[in-house]
């Protein structure tokens, strides 16, 4: 299965990994790849830890990624990076959004948000860290954070040559095309 690429998007329910993965998979299908994608629905979405998994290649069987199989992992939230790190290959690229969302045990004070995540992961994997939320805010819309992260993901995958302006325009809300294209480029430049 060496020709298959595995991408893991991890984050917190409600962060909106869906749009980013929709744009990416539209581009991959259009380029002739076999593509499978998995998401979590239902109760797990209510502020819980969520993943979107995308696999593409000549022929893809399993719709989900096993431990030690992801080529690229994009973490929409920092602590999720350590929760899912076991799912990446030792030589994987890990893109981390430097953004914290404390979980319930942290909020009520029964646990502390782990410190030094970036330092530890950087010593063990190929990690790129940046503040997607800040970049999106500077561009004028904090909601474009996911498209900034998509830009970083595309760069990590080496898929810059595809017609991203078109795929983004076709999938985002009318009137927001230009903003999202700028967000995407900012994401590519960030790592």
């Amino acid at each position, binding site marked *: *299965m060496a020709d298959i690429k595995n991408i893991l998007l991890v984050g*917190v*329910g409600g962060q909106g990994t869906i749009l980013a993965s929709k744009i990416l*998979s*539209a581009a991959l*299908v259009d380029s002739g790849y*076999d*593509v*499978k*994608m*998995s*998401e*979590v*629905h*239902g*109760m*797990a*979405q*209510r*502020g*819980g*830890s969520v993943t979107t998994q995308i696999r593409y290649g000549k022929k*893809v*069987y*399993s*719709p*989900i990624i*096993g*431990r*030690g*199989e992801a080529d690229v992992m994009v973490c929409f939230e920092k*602590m*999720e990076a*350590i929760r899912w*790190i*076991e*799912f*990446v*290959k*030792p030589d994987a690229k890990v893109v981390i959004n430097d953004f914290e969302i*404390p*979980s*319930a*045990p*942290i*909020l*009520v*004070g*029964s*646990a*502390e*948000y*782990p410190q*030094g*995540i970036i330092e*530890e*992961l950087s010593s*063990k*994997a190929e990690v790129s860290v940046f503040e997607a939320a800040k970049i999106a805010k500077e561009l004028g819309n*904090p909601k474009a954070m996911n498209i900034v992260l998509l830009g970083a993901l595309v760069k990590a995958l080496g898929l810059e040559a595809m017609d991203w302006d078109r795929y983004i325009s076709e999938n985002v809300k009318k009137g927001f095309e230009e903003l999202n294209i700028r967000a995407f480029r900012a994401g590519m430049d960030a790592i």
Partner: protein
Amino acid sequence: MKQLMTGNEAAARGAYEAGVLFAAAYPGTPSTEILENLGTLYKKDVYSEWAPNEKVAVESAIGAAIAGGRALACMKHVGVNVAADPLMTFGYTGTTAGFVIVSADDPGMHSSQNEQDNRYYAKFAKIPMLEPSDSKEALEYMKAAYELSEKWSTPVFFRMTTRVCHSKSIVEFGERKEAKPFKYEKNIARYVATPAYAKVMRVKVEERMKKMEEFSNTTDLNKPEYNGSRIGVISSGVAYQYAREVFGEEASYLKLGFTHPMPMNLIKEFASKVDKLYIVEELEPYMEDQIRAAGIDCIGKAVIPNIGELDTDRVRKAVFGEENDTIKTEKKAVDRPPTLCAGCPHRGFFYSLSKRKGIMVTGDIGCYTLGNAEPLYAIDTTICMGASISTGHGAAKVFEKTEPGKKVVSVIGDSTFLHTGVSSLMSAAYNGGNSVAVILDNRITGMTGHQQNPGTGYTLMGEPAPQVDIPALCVAMGIRAENIFIVNPNNLEENDAALDKALAAEGPSVIITKWPCILKKPSDHDKKQFDLSKKTCKVNADKCRNCKMCLKTGCPALFAKDGKVVIDQGSCTGCNVCGQVCPFDAIEKAGE
């Protein structure tokens, strides 16, 4: 046309292309989107509706199929338990027009209370079963299911699982082909399942089983793929996808899409051509037991776990003892369990409830099940849809003898109440119950993603509908009008007053908390009834004494930053539950 679709989207498309005229369901993860798709994308051609529960959905679809139109009923695995009664007998009578029941199982319990393997239902009901392994097959098999249903006049069991329902893969789709409706003809001997007629039907069921097994051995739905002869793998559903990847190009495969009755001749032939036979199936040894019973040696659950869902990783480890290299960290992620959303109307009521000590709280299935979690811990039991009021009633009856004065409160959502809670409350009223039923009416079916129900004023297809008058319904069932209390759950004083009165009341009482789900797009009815203007809350740092009482609400918009509580303005919705909890009036509405 070629498109990336989820299994649910593809199953809906398949039903549409197959000419289905009637579809019904009760929402339940992972099945919900099948009917949502039919009720929106294909509503011109397919009449679709939300039933109040799965039994009603199946019975309505049975009526539609007997009347001559192709019919579909969809539900999650535990929904089939609710619908098992009509299903078992419909297996006897058989159908006129094509009938398919979708069972969406949830191995791994992503969003369920158990992981029962519903393949046994097909065997139990003696009806054929199809198991798609991806979206492409979800569409193709759905169309095949209608052909087979009409060929043998039998309901067809269509078994999906979470990863088939919610994974996207490439689907090529076609056009709708109208199925000519059958002309209805009265046929008492066929459709009236009295003992006399059912005995005749019973014999026919076994004849049908024989024909179906012959078919199972020859159909393309069950496909051998011969490669090497050293290892053979029999698999079905998404487990096939994992097996195909793990065992690779060297092994031979028998992929089963038609799994009841099992193709025993085909399996014998396949087994004879390989040295070592593996059965890779998720959950129980449904196939393995039957293969072993036929005297065929194989390796299945001896190595492959029957708990949880499979993936390539688990299959590889189970069969070959191999594990991929992984990165391990010393730092561990803190758990991130799902929580009630910021502004969720259930929070205020559960906060009030959590202050009552010495009571038993029976819970139900919905977002509010999360009221059991830290820091509220306000639920003692959760069993199944509709169980809260009846388990509470039974518990209260025992406490009358064993711990007089101990009170029981049952919590249930609006949609779950209308699903099967109504009959539970009827029992409490009828049988001299003495518990408190709390109907958490958030004006929508919340957890599955906002489906309409008989209480919301709209149908699946977007038409206006009458709304169940819940207080009037309670009175009609025998609850005294003075024992019914309606509150705004975001108002803690109202909650406390209602709980005081309800717990002191003679006989069964009802509290109805009424406020729309914070994630719901307000309907016209909601806009008329509720003040939904949003003013976020802020901590006044001068007044805050850092007692952190507000954190006891468990609201995810509140967090401690440098030892001080801050309210995230992006997620706060201004419900002001925290403001009422604060002993120092340090939480204020922005702009006030």
